[in-house]
Every structure is written in structure tokens, then in C-alpha cells.
């Protein structure tokens, strides 16, 4: 009974459910025999019924919870304001929105809808879908949470690592949607990066002991700090080595550096921390020539060890090319040419083309640039590759 009362806070309900459990036990055990742990069986059955009833009651109040939980800034002068409660609720909401049982697109939409001030229409525009489509996506997700019994809670310790990874993946995807938007695009789309950073900050505040949350925020800040230098006046992409570093936002870089230092000191290195450390190497170099590529290559080696993927191997090859020369990098890139995951990945061909170009092998470089052009989807990237192709064919 105590368990039921603690869980439900409702004495009447607890009593009813206990009674029902006893009745069920009588029926089932007469037919099948008493289970090994009858006490546990009874508690489980009664608890589940209680939760069922509460959930049905709560369905109506979920809308209210969502409306108040995170979008309204908490008011410290409100006598009912309990920072602990609100903090816990915000965390519950993030994990619920990012539950793996929800379709990935729905996790992103729901996170935006419930954790930022964006309307359904605004989110639809940001993701270039009709408003009705986005509305349906959100409604289905909310129904699934209620109908499938997705619990509204911070996951228990044994599930937390995987779930945190999931939340970070949603935030990083949001960031990249905004980051890859070009100047002609819907402004709401570009703002997704800022929304992601804001959510990242909230998450770091809510989970101060989770270094990967700080790692992701640092990574996003470092990439974001380059926004004014990475697109030129025509809306074309500027390669990292050609960017005007005076246009990088120093205070964002400083904030990221501080976050990363604290995170790394915890001694639980993870993929976001490593990627942030790599970005920090670039941020700390006064110009492209001053970049510590040996350090970067070392960081990629660590990254490959914990996150083995051909894409990461490719990036490592590029770093080694910078540290040890294009020939060394090319050997590694060629070794990746057959990787299944990289087929159709335009950067494989673009990077290979780059290394061939630097080795003076223009004809082969041109061939690789053409392959890359055939595979890339973005206009800005296409223009960039076309220029490179021009360089190697006009000499």
C-alpha cells in the first residue's frame, strides 16, 4: 500500500488498485499456481493499474503541463516558484520529447515546439514542410506519448547514457539544419542554430555533471563563431583555410573554450568533447598556417577509437594530409574508397580531389571533382566545387 500511496498520492485509488490486484491474484493463481514472489507480483499488478488510471486522468493535463513547463520563463518572485521542481520538469520534458520510440523527425519537431517559443507554423517554415504536415507530425507524437505509455520522466540511471546521447543528437541535428542553411534561405531556418545553442545551454545548466552536454555546446559555439566568415558576399562557401579569422566571434570562442576545459577535466572524454577540441584547435590558430595539425590528427585518432566510422576516418586522413603531406593523407583516403557507408558521400570524392590537386595530379583531381559535383545537393557547395574543378582544368 505504501508504494501505491507514494506513487499515486491518492489513498482511495491505492486502496482500489490493491483490491483489484488481490482479485486478479485469486483468479490467476487458482488456475496457474502461486508465483515465486507473490508479494512482488501483487505490488507490480496493483502499481500498473494505478499508473493506468492516473495516466488517463493526466492526458487532459499534459497539454497544460506543456504550456507552462518550459516556454514561460520562470518567475523568481512567484511564491509558487520552486526552481528544483521546474528544473526537474524541464529535464523530464526534454527526455520525453527525445524518446527513442518517437520517429526522429517528431523528436525534433516536438523538442522545438515544447522547449522554444516557436509556433507550429514557424517550425514548418524552418523545415520547409507545409504547416498541416508539421501539425500532424506533432499531434501524432503527442498521441503516441500518451497511447504507448512513454513515461514522462528523466530516464533511470541504467538507461541514461543512451538517452542523453539521443537528446544530444537531436540538438546537434537542429544546429546543423541551421548551419547548413544558406543566405537565401528562410531566416527561421538559419535561426535553428541559435535555438539549438539556447537548448544546449539549458541542458548544460540542467545536467552540470554531464560533460558531453558541455562538449556539444562548446562544439556548436565554436562552429557558430565562424558564421560571418564562412559565407562570402555572393553567398558562396569560404573554405576554413581561406576564412578571415578576424570575423570569428571571439566571445563565443572564449565561452566554448571555458566550457570545454571544465568538461575535459572530468575525465570522461566523449565524441562531442573531442569534436569540440578539434574545433578549438582551429579557433586557437591565428591563421591557417599556424594550425596545429599534429594535435588535430591525434584528436581524430582518439575519436576514431570511440566512434569508429568511415566519415571520421576520412576527416582523420585530411588532418594527416595537413600534418604529414598530401601523399600520406591520400593513402588513407584511397583505403576508404570501398567503404559502403561512403558510397554516394560527396565529401569522399571532394577530399580525394583536393589531395590529388595538391599533388599536381590535375586530371585525376578533375575526375574526382566531377564525381563530387554529381553527388552534392547544396548550391553553395556546388559552386565551391565548380570553382575548384575550373582551377584544375584550366591550368
Amino acid at each position: 500500500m505504501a508504494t501505491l500511496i507514494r506513487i499515486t498520492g491518492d489513498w482511495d485509488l491505492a486502496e482500489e488498485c490493491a483490491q483489484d490486484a488481490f482479485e486478479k491474484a485469486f483468479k490467476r493463481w487458482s488456475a496457474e499456481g502461486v508465483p515465486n514472489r507473490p508479494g512482488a507480483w501483487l505490488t507490480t499488478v496493483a502499481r500498473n493499474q494505478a499508473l493506468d488510471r492516473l495516466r488517463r486522468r493526466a492526458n487532459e493535463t499534459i497539454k497544460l503541463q506543456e504550456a507552462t513547463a518550459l516556454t514561460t520563463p520562470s518567475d523568481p518572485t512567484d511564491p509558487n516558484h520552486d526552481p528544483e521542481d521546474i528544473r526537474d520538469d524541464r529535464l523530464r520534458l526534454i527526455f520525453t520529447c527525445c524518446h527513442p520510440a518517437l520517429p526522429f523527425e517528431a523528436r525534433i519537431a516536438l523538442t522545438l515546439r515544447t522547449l522554444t517559443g516557436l509556433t507550429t507554423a514557424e517550425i514548418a517554415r524552418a523545415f520547409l514542410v507545409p504547416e498541416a504536415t508539421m501539425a500532424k507530425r506533432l499531434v501524432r507524437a503527442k498521441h503516441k506519448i500518451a497511447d504507448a505509455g512513454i513515461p514522462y520522466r528523466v530516464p533511470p540511471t541504467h538507461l541514461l547514457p543512451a538517452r542523453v546521447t539521443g537528446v544530444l543528437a537531436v540538438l546537434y541535428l537542429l544546429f546543423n539544419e541551421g548551419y547548413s542553411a544558406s543566405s537565401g534561405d528562410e531566416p527561421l531556418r538559419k535561426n535553428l542554430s541559435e535555438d539549438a545553442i539556447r537548448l544546449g545551454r539549458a541542458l548544460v545548466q540542467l545536467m552540470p555533471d554531464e560533460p558531453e552536454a558541455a562538449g556539444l555546446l562548446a562544439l556548436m559555439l565554436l562552429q557558430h563563431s565562424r558564421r560571418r566568415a564562412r559565407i562570402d558576399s555572393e553567398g558562396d562557401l569560404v573554405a576554413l583555410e581561406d576564412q578571415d579569422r578576424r570575423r570569428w566571434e571571439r566571445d563565443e570562442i572564449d565561452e566554448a573554450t571555458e566550457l570545454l576545459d571544465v568538461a575535459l577535466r572530468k575525465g570522461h572524454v566523449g565524441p562531442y568533447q573531442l569534436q569540440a577540441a578539434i574545433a578549438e584547435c582551429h579557433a586557437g590558430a591565428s591563421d591557417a598556417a599556424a594550425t596545429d595539425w599534429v594535435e588535430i590528427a591525434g584528436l581524430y585518432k582518439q575519436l576514431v577509437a570511440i566512434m569508429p566510422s568511415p566519415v571520421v576516418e576520412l576527416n582523420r586522413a585530411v588532418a594527416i594530409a595537413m600534418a604529414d603531406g598530401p601523399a600520406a593523407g591520400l593513402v588513407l583516403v584511397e583505403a576508404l574508397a570501398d567503404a559502403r557507408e561512403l558510397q554516394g558521400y560527396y565529401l569522399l570524392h571532394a577530399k580525394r580531389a583536393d589531395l590529388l590537386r595538391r599533388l599536381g595530379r590535375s586530371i585525376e583531381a578533375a575526375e574526382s571533382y566531377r564525381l563530387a559535383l554529381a553527388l552534392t545537393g547544396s548550391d553553395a557547395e556546388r559552386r565551391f566545387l565548380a570553382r575548384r574543378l575550373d582551377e584544375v582544368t584550366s591550368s
Partner: protein
Amino acid sequence: MKYMLFICADPDVKLTPEQEAEASKGTESWVKEMDGRGVRLQGDRLRPVSDATTVRARNKEVLIADGPFAETKEQIAGYDILECADLDEAIEVASKHPVAKFGVIEVRPFWPF
């Protein structure tokens, strides 16, 4: 909350006798554990889809055909009915079923009454 588990596997994938025995024993202990926890209400193994029949009633005619209704690679090999606190518990129970290692388990909530 009540959940249906559809235990699905590719019938064309032949298991070795050792794998069969392991899956069979594993299922037995899974059933025992979940029954004991009070999360499994009932369940059963089904005959293969070659024994299945589809039935439709259209225009006052009863249309009967051989075989499963779904033309999928994986077919339903059995079912279990669970009573769990929430989806996370149902997922945990499903993940421990031996077929989860090589097949797929669909977890579907019952329509609330």
C-alpha cells in the same frame, strides 16, 4: 498498461539445431522470468505461415486464401501479452526475448478500454 508483443522472424533464415535449442531454452526462461515478475499475462507460439489462411468478407462473399496477409520478409511467429508500468518496461521485457537477437519484436499498446 497492456501491450501486445508480436515476435517476428524471417522464416527463410534457417537456424542450426544448436541455435534452435538455444532459442527454445531462452524462450522458456524468458517466459518463466516474465511470468514471475507479473508482467506477462499470456502468450503462445504460432504455427508457420504455411498454415495460415486469410479471410475477407466482401459483397456478401467470403474470400479465402492461403498464406499470411502481409508480404513481408519477417513473419509473426508468436505473441505475448504484457502488463507493464510504461513503454520503457515493455521495451526492456521485449529486448530480453531471445528472438530480439536475430528477429524483431513489435510492441503495440492495447486500445484503452
